[in-house]
């Protein structure tokens, strides 16, 4: 009796272990199918219901008219060309012979439908301010030409619509039912809420048949879990593994780690309208107190590039060689502090709790500023509280970033540094101040760059404005952001882009 009970229990245990072994969820054995671990949930319907329960990013099911080059210039995509016929009118020529996933050809009617019925109607009124378009402003000229009428002169329009959210969908799509019909290299096959989106190869893709037969985009929001998924072989590729495990991953022969500079930059932003950071000597002293190289090498584990300006140089109108530099020099820094209006008071430094490595970065800065005699109090707050405090100008220093999800990055200059930009406007109108706005000539240069259709003229104006901004030490640049992709070493052919979400999967292969 006892022995048979033991046999039964042993059998159950053995069967349990065997079934657990079958539950490992290892990535598929299909050599042409790939699983990608993302740091964000590709099925987050709380944000993206207009795409049938998946985000518009990553999956390449749907495509915009314009894409972005590696140096953040607008690049022809579903539109082959565009011209401005006057200050507010744009004509876009569509690529001919582009099939949707339902076999129908892309025409101007589909573009008008997408903008008028979907983008400008369903996605919220904020779209008007973003795209400078209002309902009724998109019209068909002929089957392959569409006219856009912006609400005001907006030379950055083509770059601004080079964004995954401004994609073209076929009118037969039933977005609420998860039926998405795009023109991308992959067709939507399955959405598992909170878990994954699975897409399959679209053999008739206008850019040529993709290599992968199937891609699965898995949500793995915790960086440790994401890294575990890769190490266990349950995914083929992950974005941004845990930094603490980067060096171990780099040592492994079966894992490849690639870094790509992004369009983001992190700086300490100084409130130039509040004492004592209103004093340029103090601001320059803070710049001389910091070693960006040390910060990147230690806190960031080498992920990032030491910065000299507040905007990533992958954006074509940024030239950091033109900017004044502040080498780390504590003696000079102390002299500047002595010369400034600073008399030992505590400066508030706001850091968002959401910021990657924000706590460690702020602790290092606190120490480095302390070494030149400047007393900084770090306030680690949730993101909304940081925004609230900065909106009211109740801070001296703020660790924050700039970046862009499209080549249309002019807003970085306008919104941060122009007096009428969103960061400065309210305080300027209420008190005649702002936060980071030098006003005068800098405002003029930003306006010139913003309204320029000539890339060289835009660049000249923006570079000159950035030179003045850095000469006045409005920010302490810290680092240009990079992102990391770690993959099974057998996975080849991934094309990374400064905009993370513009990754190209079409050439993915797996070597033996």
């Amino acid at each position, binding site marked *: 009796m006892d022995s048979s009970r033991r046999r039964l229990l042993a059998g159950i245990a053995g069967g349990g272990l065997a079934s657990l072994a079958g539950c*490992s969820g290892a990535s598929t054995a299909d050599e042409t199918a790939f699983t990608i671990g993302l740091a964000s949930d590709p099925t987050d319907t*709380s*944000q993206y219901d207009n795409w049938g329960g998946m985000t518009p990013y990553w999956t390449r099911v749907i495509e915009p008219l314009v894409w972005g080059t590696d140096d953040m210039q607008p690049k022809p995509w579903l539109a082959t060309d565009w011209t401005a016929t006057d200050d507010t009118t744009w004509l876009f020529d569509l690529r001919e012979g582009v099939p949707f996933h339902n076999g129908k050809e892309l025409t101007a009617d589909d573009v008008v439908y997408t903008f008028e019925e979907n983008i400008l109607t369903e996605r919220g009124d904020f779209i008007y301010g*973003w795209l400078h378009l209002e309902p009724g402003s998109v019209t068909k000229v002929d089957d392959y030409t569409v006219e856009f009428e912006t609400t005001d002169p907006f030379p950055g329009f083509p770059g601004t619509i080079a964004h995954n959210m401004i994609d073209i969908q076929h009118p037969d799509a039933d977005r609420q039912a998860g039926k998405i019909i795009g023109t991308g290299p992959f067709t939507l096959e399955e959405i598992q*809420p909170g878990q994954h989106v699975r897409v399959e190869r679209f053999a008739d893709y206008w850019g040529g048949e993709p290599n992968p037969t199937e891609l699965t985009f898995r949500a793995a929001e915790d960086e440790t879990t994401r890294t575990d998924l890769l190490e266990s072989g349950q995914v083929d590729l992950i974005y941004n593994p845990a930094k603490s495990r980067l060096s171990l991953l780099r040592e492994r022969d079966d894992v490849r780690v690639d870094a790509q500079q992004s369009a983001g930059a992190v700086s300490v932003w100084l409130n130039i309208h509040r004492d004592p950071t209103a004093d340029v000597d103090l601001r320059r002293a803070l710049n001389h107190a910091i070693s960006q190289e040390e910060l990147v090498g230690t806190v960031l584990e080498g992920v990032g590039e030491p910065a000299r300006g507040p905007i990533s140089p992958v954006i074509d109108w940024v030239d950091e060689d033109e900017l004044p530099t502040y080498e780390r020099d504590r003696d000079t820094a102390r002299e500047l502090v002595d010369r400034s209006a600073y008399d030992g008071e505590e400066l508030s430094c706001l850091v968002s709790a959401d910021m990657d490595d924000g706590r460690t970065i702020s602790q290092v800065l606190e120490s480095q500023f302390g070494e030149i005699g400047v007393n900084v109090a770090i306030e680690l707050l*949730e993101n909304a509280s940081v*925004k609230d405090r900065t*909106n009211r100008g109740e801070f001296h220093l703020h660790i924050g970033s700039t970046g862009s999800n499209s080549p249309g990055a002019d807003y*970085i200059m306008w919104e941060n540094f122009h007096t009428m930009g969103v*960061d400065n406007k309210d305080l300027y109108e209420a008190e005649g101040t702002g936060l980071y706005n030098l006003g005068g000539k800098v405002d003029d240069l930003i306006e010139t760059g913003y309204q320029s259709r000539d890339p060289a003229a835009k660049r000249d104006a923006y570079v000159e404005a950035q030179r003045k901004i850095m000469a006045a030490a409005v920010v302490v640049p810290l680092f240009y952001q990079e992102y990391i992709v770690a993959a099974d070493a057998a996975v080849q052919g991934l094309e990374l882009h400064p905009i993370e979400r513009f990754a190209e999967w079409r050439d993915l292969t797996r070597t033996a």
Partner: protein
Amino acid sequence: MISYDYLASRLATSLAVTFGVSVVTYGLIFLTPGDPAEIILSQQLNRQPSAAEIEAFRAEHGLNDPVPVQYLHWLTDVFRGDLGSSYYSDTSVSTLIVEAVPLTLELALAAMLVALAISVPAGVVSAVHRGSPIDYASQLGALLGVSMPNFWLAYLLILLFPLKLGVLPVAGAGSFGHLVLPAITLGTGMAAVVTRLIRSSMLEVLDEAYVDTARAKGLRERIVVYKHALRNALVPVVTILGLQLGTLLNGAVVVEIIFQRPGLGSLLVDAVFERNYPVVQGVTLVTAIVFVATNLLVDLTYRYLDPRVQLGGETA
């Protein structure tokens, strides 16, 4: 027999509590700093939104109305069965909740099963063998379970099973295998609490005269312990289990994140940080209702476990 008066009074109290929760939540979220328009737009656009974009968003979602007016609009809609829509999109809050509930409920029930599977035998054996090595081992285990942060246990389990042994998925949902590690992670902490509670409750009950009587009648020890003693010892345990179930429904955020099982907890926490007020209100309301209902259920269960327990209006 439970009286209708008692049920009516409990229902009225429950409604008052739920209403109070909604008022307090609404007041608190509007007192917290941060403009939802700015937070949400900067997430959607991945950049700082312009003043025009922010103003358009505020107007579209009625955020320029006074707070009491906004609350009244929300309350009116709730009475019509409409919890509103997420500020991010047109997705209704009810849909978001319905999508999140299965994963949450599945995990909560599995964790509770794990907790009971560990705690009932451990608590009983510990009490029956009081002062023995088994008792000390059980108490040490319970102490470890209470002290161990669940995120740490989660990572340890991942390290052991998927990474070292190659069994079980690291994260995700959709199969029994996906449920095992999160349930163990969450259930262990709860098991520790319940084990200690069952032990102390059993110790009290085992000293009761009716247990001696049962033994004197010649009943087998197993029957005495599990049929006579344990049932009475479970009364305080049910209270804890009821409260724990309520906590599990939106308190398992860390486990949800590590194992990528986004449920009600993650939905609420994300909504709070994003200032997505309709979602915060909707989830809080549903959670309050679940808590109130669970408490009512717990009270009714007392009656089943111990017929001597009287609920309001009952006659002995």
